[in-house]
């Protein structure tokens, strides 16, 4: 069973910074896990991790930006807060452009750090909800037969059963049966709900 406690994952190569941040955040009521290198965090990473990453921007073996790239590539939705020195601000701006949640300069304004972590947790909760809903819809789409998927395409393009029957060379009655199956498998109570659930999450039914 993978650990899923909402936590702050701190990655910093400086042992004292790592330990002091752990002590401070734990004293402030957060669960914390510490990593002395980006590689060790990647080794421990799994999709169920919840919370946020507090990441040093300048590390010897792999930069914070490198880890950010890798996390994005593996589909992580963990918000990243970069820790920077004064001279790292241009790099931090680059990180923000690449989707970082925010950055904070060392030594910290600890009140601001707590605010950022709390906001990052909230964003992660919302992102995970969206992701979970997306996965549920994709899983439902995968239960459709090829013919049902074809009918679904017509439904979400606003075609009536009569038109679908004509285009697919089927009887209207057969199309109605396919339509009912689609609605049931997609757990949609109305066509509007069906269309919304698919379009809201930008899912292409043909590749789900």
């Amino acid at each position: 069973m993978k650990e899923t406690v909402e936590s702050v994952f701190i990655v910093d190569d400086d042992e004292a910074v790592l330990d002091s941040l752990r002590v401070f955040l734990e004293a402030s009521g957060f669960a914390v896990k510490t990593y002395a290198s980006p590689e060790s965090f990647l080794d421990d990473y799994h999709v169920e991790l919840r919370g946020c990453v507090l990441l040093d921007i300048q590390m010897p073996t792999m930069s914070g930006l490198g880890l950010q790239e890798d996390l994005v590539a593996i589909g992580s939705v963990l918000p990243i807060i970069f820790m920077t020195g004064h001279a790292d601000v241009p790099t931090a701006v680059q990180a923000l452009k690449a989707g970082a949640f925010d950055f904070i300069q060392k030594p910290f304004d600890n009140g601001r750090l707590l605010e950022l972590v709390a906001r990052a947790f909230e964003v992660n909760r919302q992102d995970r909800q969206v992701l979970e809903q997306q996965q549920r819809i994709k899983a439902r789409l995968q239960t459709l037969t090829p013919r049902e998927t074809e009918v679904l395409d017509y439904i979400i393009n606003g075609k009536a059963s009569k038109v679908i029957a004509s285009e697919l060379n089927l009887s209207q009655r057969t199309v109605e049966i396919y339509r009912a199956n689609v609605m049931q498998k997609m757990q949609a109570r109305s066509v509007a709900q069906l269309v919304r659930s698919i379009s809201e999450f930008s899912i292409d039914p043909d590749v789900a």
Partner: protein
Amino acid sequence: MENNEAQGENRGQNSSNSTRSAVEKQAFEDDIGQILHRLNQPLTAINNYAQAGCQLIERGEVDPARLQDLFIKIFAQSLRSFEISQELGISVLRKPNGQEN
């Protein structure tokens, strides 16, 4: 003719001196930047340990052993800062010639 050549040589010499000076200046700034980056680490740690102590006191979790542990860590990091700041002082004294203070 000779005068022109001498002037050309002087210009070349001045240009070479100016390039060397720019390289030295850049190396000096890089060194100082690195030391400041290193100095930032123990200062950050001291700040975090002290804030953690305040949090514990605010929450009424005043365990003397735990607070003592924080003070020992603050002490260790302040020594580390002191050593790095001494290094910074030595580097500043080695400032390349011709640089303004």
